[in-house]
């Protein structure tokens, strides 16, 4: 089985936010929830870079560890998913997540959170693959259709890569060697305790 990861080549990302829009549209993500976002570092200064960020599907995921109802699980493709039937919306996973991936619809009084929503790596949830129930709760299941996540698939500059860890690391390595520079695989060290060595 593959070890699925994202890799954002920030030397290619042009901050077009198409990945964000594609994700929102593909999964009918409600207003106020952002499974993916683009953050620009040093905006307007020389050397600014934009990075597209979503759930990194960490190895030994902190969200899963802190969940008080143990609603997370890791698929055979190493994708970190969760059950909205079990989630109580406590917000702990957001405190633990190094990447700010978990999102909560605001329901009810005070800052009361609804059930958490996050990037599923376009692979649904615990319900039967491609079922209506799965789509309503978690969005499309492209992995079950043999497709990769839409954000990476439609990236116009191919800055955002999705796929097996070894494969996308190899693509990135070749790019860096060919063009002579690269600002690294953002978030890999925090998420996987390893980075792409070039």
């Amino acid at each position, binding site marked *: 089985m593959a070890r699925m990861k994202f890799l954002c080549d920030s030397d290619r990302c042009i901050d077009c936010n198409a990945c964000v829009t594609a994700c929102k549209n593909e999964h009918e993500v409600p207003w106020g929830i952002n499974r993916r976002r683009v*953050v620009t*570092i040093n905006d307007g200064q020389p050397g600014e870079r934009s990075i597209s960020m979503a759930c990194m599907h960490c190895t030994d995921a902190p969200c899963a560890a802190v969940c*008080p*109802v143990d*609603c997370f699980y890791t698929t055979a493709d190493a994708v970190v998913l969760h059950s909205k039937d079990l989630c109580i919306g*406590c917000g702990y996973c957001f405190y*633990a997540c*190094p990447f700010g991936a978990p999102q909560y619809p605001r329901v009810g009084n005070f800052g009361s959170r609804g059930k958490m929503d996050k990037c599923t790596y376009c692979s649904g949830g615990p319900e039967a693959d491609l079922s209506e129930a799965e789509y309503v709760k978690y969005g499309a299941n492209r992995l079950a259709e043999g497709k990769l996540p839409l954000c990476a698939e439609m990236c116009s500059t191919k800055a955002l890569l999705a796929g097996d860890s070894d494969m996308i690391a190899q693509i990135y390595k070749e790019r860096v060697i060919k063009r002579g520079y690269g600002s690294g695989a953002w978030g890999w060290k925090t998420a996987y305790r390893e980075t792409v060595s070039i």
Partner: protein
Amino acid sequence: MKTGLTLRAFVLVAAVSLAPLSAPVLAQGNPSGKNPTADSVNEEALFKQNSKITGRISIPDEKAATLEQPQGREWRGFHEGWMPWIGAIAILGMVILLAAFYFTKGRIMLEHNEHSGRKILRFNTFERFTHWMTATCFIILALTGLNYIFGKRLLMPLIGPDAFASLSQWSKYAHNFLAWPFIIGLCFMMAVWMADNIPKRIDWDWLRAGGGFFDGRHLHAGRFNAGQKIVFWVVTLGGLLMSISGIMLLFPFAALDINGMQIFQGVHAVIGVLFIAAMLAHIYIGSLGMEGAYDAMSSGEVDLAWARAHHDLWVEEQQAKTASGPQVPRRPVPAE
């Protein structure tokens, strides 16, 4: 044809006029064909400058501008590594301590000369209402709070993930909503009891004598003895800390950033388990630990002789206040 020519001429003019402008820009950006992105930001350098990486975001969600905060892993280490141990040691430690006390010293019984048959009102209806409202909220808040730490470890294996998730969902609602009557009760308790709980010189004597626990002496005490004053201040300070940190958690990110939320969650959890341990001692001494103590907070009346023995200065004060003596007023007798 004519249009085409004009356009070509325009492009040429534009190119010529822009050339002096663009040439230095190019020269500046890449003077010797070296890496044009040498000054680009990179993760490692950013982490050296700051503990987290923040940038600009185009969506109206300020916290989304934090790209990476590895402190999440530290918070996880605290929450899953330290917290269950802190909680278990504080609470089980107190239970063991109280059990040891009970089995070695037993209940503190009323002495035969502490029964006169006459009653004195110790806590009025409002005080008792306030106490029990706060106490009920506290017990539910404590149990639902402990569920966040120990539920998945102790309860979930017994009742299964689905039932446990439903229970935890309701626990969360209870925890969020009962926080408010708890805070109100806390304010009421401060209002009615703070004046009687200001530390005085005799409290020091009481503490030095260990409250008479060891030699059975009765020391001078006002309305509250030093031990009770300690309970009051533990509840007041603990309750205020829990309220402040709790309100921060109830309105996430209203006043704090992600690291602030992590710290306040930690404070809420640690103070919470210590508070629970302290209240176990209070519950023990107010019920099982001391004969007659429960009456003060249930009926509100205690025996006058007992009050004289344990709260002599307070009884004197009450008797001085009321010319007719300290007895509880007779309940109105219903007309035939």
